């Protein structure tokens, strides 16, 4: 059974300049214990869709979806109070900036045991023991001493481990990691990623990894979903994606990887992600697409089939060549 089902999720923000559509009809499905990566540039809406799922968006956001189900529970119709029983317990999230994501006024031990107390109860002693156990699990040395430490006394990497400890405290079925290593040193990045993978194995939980780093995706994920400007433009298994990307954006992303460079200059994508003021008519990627033609600028594509990686493209790429449109040969 599918653990997480998102169908046609749309998130709009109310700004002084008008409504801004941060997430546009995204669909996603994650099974028990699966490892899914969501990739995209800044502004692709990857974080926002997950925040919407957790109910962590500000009041200026309007969330609509055909279906938003977690573990059989309908999140759309659920009351806030019921949702709070799920969040932090069965579905948890860790964030990008570990140094500011922990409350500076409370000790690490307090913040961990708080999560335990809210969802699991138990005595102070059991909670404390579990906190020590968790800190051991996340690889923090001298856990008993650390319980009384304040976040500012720890390094970024250690804080992120604490965050992970808090998130897995109640053995969640799904852990969403929003760019967990972006703010950390390169050496620590690898450690944290390994930790996440190890925990996933041990606890059997599903992991959604949000990242903009294709290298991380290659090393960790099973399936990948690529987002651009709030829309999902492709979804495949990792191997297939790297072998044969079907959406021009994915292809461009991959060719920009240093490891794939041929020749002296690194190919880059011209242009920028559309913001509030320059949303194009038709396909959102068309202004930057090497394969765009007339139809692309007029009408948004429908989602292609599974064999084409659900690409949002009129003419998905097959082995680097755009497919033919209605049988017509293209130059």
């Amino acid at each position: 059974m599918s653990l997480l089902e998102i169908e046609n999720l749309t998130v709009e923000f109310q700004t002084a300049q008008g409504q801004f559509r941060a997430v546009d009809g995204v669909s996603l499905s994650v099974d028990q214990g699966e490892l899914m990566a969501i990739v995209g540039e800044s502004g692709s809406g990857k974080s926002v869709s997950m925040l919407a799922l957790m109910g962590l968006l500000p009041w200026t956001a309007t969330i609509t979806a055909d279906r938003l189900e977690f573990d059989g529970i309908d999140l759309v119709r659920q009351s806030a109070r019921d949702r709070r029983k799920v969040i932090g317990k069965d579905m948890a999230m860790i964030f990008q900036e570990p140094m500011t994501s922990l409350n500076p006024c409370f000790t690490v031990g307090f913040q961990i045991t708080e999560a335990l107390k809210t969802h699991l109860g138990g005595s102070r002693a059991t909670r404390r023991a579990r906190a020590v156990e968790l800190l051991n699990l996340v690889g923090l040395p001298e856990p008993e001493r650390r319980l009384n430490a304040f976040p500012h006394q720890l390094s970024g990497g250690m804080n992120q481990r604490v965050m992970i400890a808090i998130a897995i405290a109640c053995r969640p079925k799904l852990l969403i990691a929003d760019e967990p290593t972006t703010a950390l040193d390169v050496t620590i990045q690898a450690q944290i990623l390994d930790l996440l993978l190890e925990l996933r194995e041990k606890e059997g939980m599903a992991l959604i990894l949000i990242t903009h780093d294709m290298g991380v995706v290659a090393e960790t994920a099973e399936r990948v979903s690529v987002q651009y400007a709030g829309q999902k433009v492709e979804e495949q298994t990792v191997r297939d994606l790297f072998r044969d990307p079907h959406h021009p954006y994915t292809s461009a992303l991959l060719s920009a990887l240093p490891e794939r460079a041929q020749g002296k200059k690194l190919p880059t994508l011209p242009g920028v992600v559309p913001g509030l003021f320059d949303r194009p008519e038709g396909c959102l990627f068309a202004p930057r697409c090497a394969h765009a033609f007339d139809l692309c600028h007029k009408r948004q594509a429908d989602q292609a089939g599974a064999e084409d990686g659900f690409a949002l493209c009129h003419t998905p790429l097959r082995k680097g060549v755009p497919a033919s449109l209605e049988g017509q040969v293209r130059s």
Partner: protein
Amino acid sequence: MIKLLFRRVGLMIPTFIGATLLSFLFIRMLPGDPVLLMAGERGMSEERYQRLLHEFGFDRPYWQQYIEYLWGVLQGDLGESFRTKVPVLQEFLTLFPATVELSLCAMLLATVLGIPAGVIAAIRRGRALDHGTMGAALVGYSMPIFWWALMLIIVVSGQWGLTPVSGRISLLYYFEPVTGFMLIDSLLSGQEGAFGSAVQHLILPTIVLGTIPLAVVARQTRSAMLEVLGEDYVRTARAKGLSPFRVVGIHALRNALIPVTTTIGLQIGVLFGGAILTETIFAWPGIGKWMIESVSARDYSVVQGGLLLIAVIVMVVNLMVDLMYGLINPKIRY
């Protein structure tokens, strides 16, 4: 922490010197002959004039005068009030408790009402409760407090007859002051109704003096809360599935209170020396009233000494606020 204390006290010293300088220069900046001003007399004999000139030290070079003045200050000698012939320091110490009592009650009112108001306004941002409380705070902030006092007297004392118009306690009661705080002394005296009378006399002045701090605390709490509510760790707290009460009341408030308690502390300092208008209208025998009367009566020893003492009090309060800030902000304490 001890290092912090020493550093702060160290910073205080130049400010203290500056304050003594200002007080010292004050007399010399006034129009008129300083000897006559200090003596408060007019038309004295030449002989007396010379004697006073020497006694006050005006015949010596400025820097020497200043050293003598500073030396006197450090020993507690701030001169003598020419009206009452009582040493300035002594008079100050007699009157100061009244101001402290009033100020503390006013700040208590401001805190107990202001913080909840600010929190509610922050979490109901943009809605009726927010506009309502902040609107009320704005009005409180914009009122001339002497007028507010007069209005309250007209209505509450005049028309409704609920509170007295002036003084700290009804004239029916007399007892020797023990602490100088009427609320405590009236209880200690054991006289029936004394405490009630003391409380009654405190009501209007507390409301008047506390109005502006209340408005300031409410606004400050609201803006601190709004800032904190946007922080990452509040998002983490919500992501843990904590109830809104806990997120706001514990995670957010604890952080927001850091700047707010600083504001409260600083406001106390302002109130200690600035209750002039309230004390004048309610004939409250504190140092504010003492100062204005001395300025009007040209009792310059008092003005000079009082200025310095008030500056020192404010400096000490600010120092305590700084230290307290170091205690409640874990980033500094640990």
